[in-house]
């Protein structure tokens, strides 16, 4: 027995060096292996570009640390959720049960997030959400074990209501895909839009994945609205923006929306049609804070001159949270409750501003929601900041942590 | 005089401009053996199809045992007691001979709706299938898939399937078509041995079969009944020779 103990003390001395002796030593032994970070994201289909941005930024952050924290290697296990709940849930199960990941991250799809929520909660797996914005996860379905480093759907939209009413138009047509996120975002927008004297001319909810918006655009044209506020992403965003321009609406109606409408994943495909669109988002690569400048520089150097986008920022903050929390517990991932406490207190300078979690909901407090306009600057189409609203935190209605 | 078993009254059937049947009237008494002859294209098979409900008549009425059957689905007409064989072999090729016959024998539906039971317990249809197999000379081939039988055997099974439902009226559409002389002879014996209770309506080109089997003969020509009578009467009718035998139907 003494012999065994001595030899393994020697073997793990590097790890154990900064650690208090006693029970810690034993635990370090159990943890000599790598720290496994599970990633559930879409790597195929239209949304693969989102998964790619998030993953690249995470890799960038981990690479800065040489893929080692507190003497333990970091290992990312990536799974393609194919943007379908069935697969996403199956992959979550694999990562939790088979790979026994220490921390889980992802997904993009809100449905997958809601689908994996109970599994994560019941198995006490720490999940850091790197995109999906379903409000519920910061409300009635919040969990002690779930943090969100991206946004809740409410966040980029609620501040925009008042801003649009004051600066763009009072008569506004609302359009969003017909599903929970779309409706939630429009509701959040109205929270500040109506009190500021705005009037909703009409609202339409085309199906998610609509390819031809002509019937809706015809309605908008004839509604007399002075502005449109919308939420679209991916293919929907490209087609809506292009067709909006095709119908000649840009001359008479101002197009505004949630930031996803004109993120860099869709902006090149939209081209000139996107010029002048005003959107609210927590990030744009043009931000001038030093953290962001460094991030943009490193990201472009590493990934073939690609501009980081909001998704990359989410990936960055997800990984940064993980690195800082792991350092704080000295690589001990066994004590989950402690790890949760540490993550809750994690605070750092993110490309988007000062990053911290709301202890009430475990959702990120957006340092700013930036009001951005698409302009042709810096050699291409970019979202230029024209205004900002500080400290946007989700109301967290119905969330009682620790749950 | 008792009512006929099958009464066909002024039945017509048109396909577009073509009329395959043109006001055909025909009645068959119970226990009778009636042959329908006529050159190709005379409308014989169409007549069968109209009787058994595969085709709806364009006009006219058909009564079986005094009840109208026009408009009933084929299965409902079969249930009334009319069964038929087909000119083109029409079997269940991947099912065994015994199963071909058993399915037909169980078509009255009793037991066939049983979703969880075993086929082996259906004693009556199984017995009937063996009986018919014996009658059509396929008792040795019960387990063979129907598709693997020789052509002659398939023709025998074709008649067997029609027989297995125990019809009161049996319609046979050229049962000996394409058979060798020996096979034809065997088929003729088989048909002669059928019980008299089973009324027979048979389309046949082989005159030897017709004359050795039929009590009466109807001659169809251009969708109309040209004449009708005993074999001797028909044999003596000059018109028949003209349209049918005389014009040298070349088969």
């Amino acid at each position, binding site marked *: 027995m003494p012999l065994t103990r001595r030899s393994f003390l020697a073997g793990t001395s590097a790890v154990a060096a900064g650690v208090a002796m006693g029970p810690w030593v034993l635990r370090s032994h159990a943890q000599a292996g790598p720290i496994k970070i599970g990633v559930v994201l879409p790597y195929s289909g239209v949304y693969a570009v989102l998964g790619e941005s998030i993953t690249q930024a995470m890799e960038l952050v981990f690479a800065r640390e040489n893929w080692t924290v507190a003497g333990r290697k970091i290992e990312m296990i990536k799974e393609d959720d194919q943007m379908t709940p069935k697969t996403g849930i199956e992959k979550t199960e694999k990562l939790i049960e088979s790979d026994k990941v220490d921390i889980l991250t992802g997904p993009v799809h809100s449905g997958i997030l809601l689908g994996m929520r109970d599994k994560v909660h019941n198995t006490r797996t720490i999940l850091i959400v790197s995109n999906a914005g379903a409000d519920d996860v910061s409300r009635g379905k919040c969990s002690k074990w779930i943090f969100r480093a991206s946004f809740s759907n409410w966040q980029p939209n609620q501040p925009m209501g008042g801003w649009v009413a004051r600066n763009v138009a009072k008569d506004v047509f609302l359009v969003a895909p017909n599903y929970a996120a779309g409706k939630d975002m429009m509701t959040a927008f109205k929270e500040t839009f109506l009190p500021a004297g705005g009037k909703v001319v009409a609202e339409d909810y085309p199906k998610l994945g609509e390819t031809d918006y002509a019937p809706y655009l*015809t*309605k908008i044209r004839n509604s007399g609205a002075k502005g449109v506020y919308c939420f679209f992403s991916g293919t929907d965003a490209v087609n809506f923006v292009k067709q909006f321009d095709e*119908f000649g609406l840009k001359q008479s109606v101002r197009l505004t929306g949630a930031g996803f409408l004109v993120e860099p994943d*869709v902006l090149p*495909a939209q081209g000139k049609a996107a010029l002048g669109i005003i959107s609210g988002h927590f990030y744009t690569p043009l931000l001038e804070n030093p953290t962001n400048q460094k991030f943009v520089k490193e990201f472009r150097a590493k990934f073939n001159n690609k501009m980081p986008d909001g998704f990359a920022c989410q990936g960055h903050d997800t990984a940064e949270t993980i690195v800082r929390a792991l350092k704080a517990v000295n690589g001990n991932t066994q004590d989950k409750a402690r790890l949760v406490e540490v993550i809750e207190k994690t605070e750092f300078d993110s490309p988007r501003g000062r990053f911290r979690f709301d202890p009430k909901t475990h959702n990120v407090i957006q340092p700013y929601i930036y009001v951005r306009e698409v302009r042709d600057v810096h050699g291409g189409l970019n979202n230029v900041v024209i205004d900002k609203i500080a400290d946007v935190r989700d109301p967290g209605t119905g969330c009682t942590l620790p749950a | 005089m008792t009512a006929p078993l099958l009464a066909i009254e002024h039945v017509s059937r048109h396909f577009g401009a073509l009329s395959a049947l043109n006001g055909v009237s025909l009645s068959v008494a119970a226990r009778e053996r009636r042959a329908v002859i006529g050159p190709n294209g005379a409308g014989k098979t169409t007549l069968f199809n109209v009787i058994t409900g595969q085709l709806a008549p364009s006009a006219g009425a058909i009564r079986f045992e005094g009840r109208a059957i026009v408009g009933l689905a084929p299965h409902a007409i079969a249930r009334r007691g009319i069964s038929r064989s087909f000119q083109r072999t029409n079997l269940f090729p991947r099912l065994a001979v015994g199963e071909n016959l058993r399915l037909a024998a169980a078509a009255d539906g009793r037991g066939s709706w049983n979703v969880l039971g075993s086929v082996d317990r259906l004693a009556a249809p199984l017995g009937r299938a063996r009986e018919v197999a014996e009658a059509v000379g396929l008792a040795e081939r019960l387990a063979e898939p129907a598709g693997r039988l020789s052509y002659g055997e398939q023709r025998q099974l074709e008649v067997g399937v029609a027989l297995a439902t125990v019809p009161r009226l049996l319609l046979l559409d050229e049962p000996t078509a394409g058979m060798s002389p020996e096979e034809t002879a065997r088929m003729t014996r088989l048909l002669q041995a059928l019980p008299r209770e089973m009324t027979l309506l048979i389309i046949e080109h082989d005159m030897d079969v017709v004359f050795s089997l039929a009590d009466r003969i109807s001659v169809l020509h251009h969708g109309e009944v040209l004449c009708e009578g005993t074999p001797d009467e028909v044999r003596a009718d000059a018109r028949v020779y003209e349209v049918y035998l005389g014009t040298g139907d070349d088969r």
Partner: protein
Amino acid sequence: MTPVDLLGQALNGLAYGVLLFLLSVGLTLIFGMLDVVNLAHGSFYMLGAFAGLGLIAATGSFWAALVLAPVVVGVVGALVERTCLRPLYRRAVLDQVLLTFGLIYLFEDVVKWIWGGRIRSIPGPALFSGSVKIAGAAFPAYRLFVIVFGLAIAVVLWLVIERTRLGSIVRAGVWDAEMTAGMGIDIDRVFTGVFAGGAALAGLSGVIAGPIRSAYPAMGSEILVVTLIVVVVGGLGSLKGSLAGSLIIGQAETFGKAWLPETAMLIIYVVMALVVLFRPQGLFGRPLR
């Protein structure tokens, strides 16, 4: 709804319907003649869009792509027919379903491999950029071009099928392929030709749709179902039916979106169910049995 609004929506529906026609006419002829349920027909549409994208990049001309992309897709179609479908004609419908279902996956991934999963926008021709005023309301010039072009193709197809020897062979083949073969016609080549032609038309619609709907790998499997519905509504194997079905579905979906956006998805299925219930062979299909 004002008259201007009505007109605008009708034009929207017409542009969409014409697109559906180009897609469905190939499918319906393949159905009618080869008896093949070609689930990969949407993939040809997708391939057309991406081939167009590549050709525009290479030639710098939308018009060159409009001519060449269908040729490329037609060749792919011919290859598929020769290598994969030919051995299956005498097999069950099911095998063709499985095969063409497999092809959907295959084509989608190959395209992703070459072009990546990103949504690509296809630049429309400069000639038809912007919008024109119709009865005082702006309507995209490109969509007007689509309407005119699609209807012109319909007329050409009608002439080819009704007035040429090739057309009469195809018409005969739709009714009874076996009989046509008996007439001493090399039915194999006709089959390949029809399949390749159908694929080329789907490719053409992909190029046409590109400037409106963008190009992305899943676009083919998304459009497939509505194309199948058009074919069933119009009647298998019928050119007239394909046109009628396309225009009906195009208008039904457009006005559905305009008036009842939240149930718009249902409308086309309801139209189809009604047609199949009351006229199972479709509007212009040959009667069943």
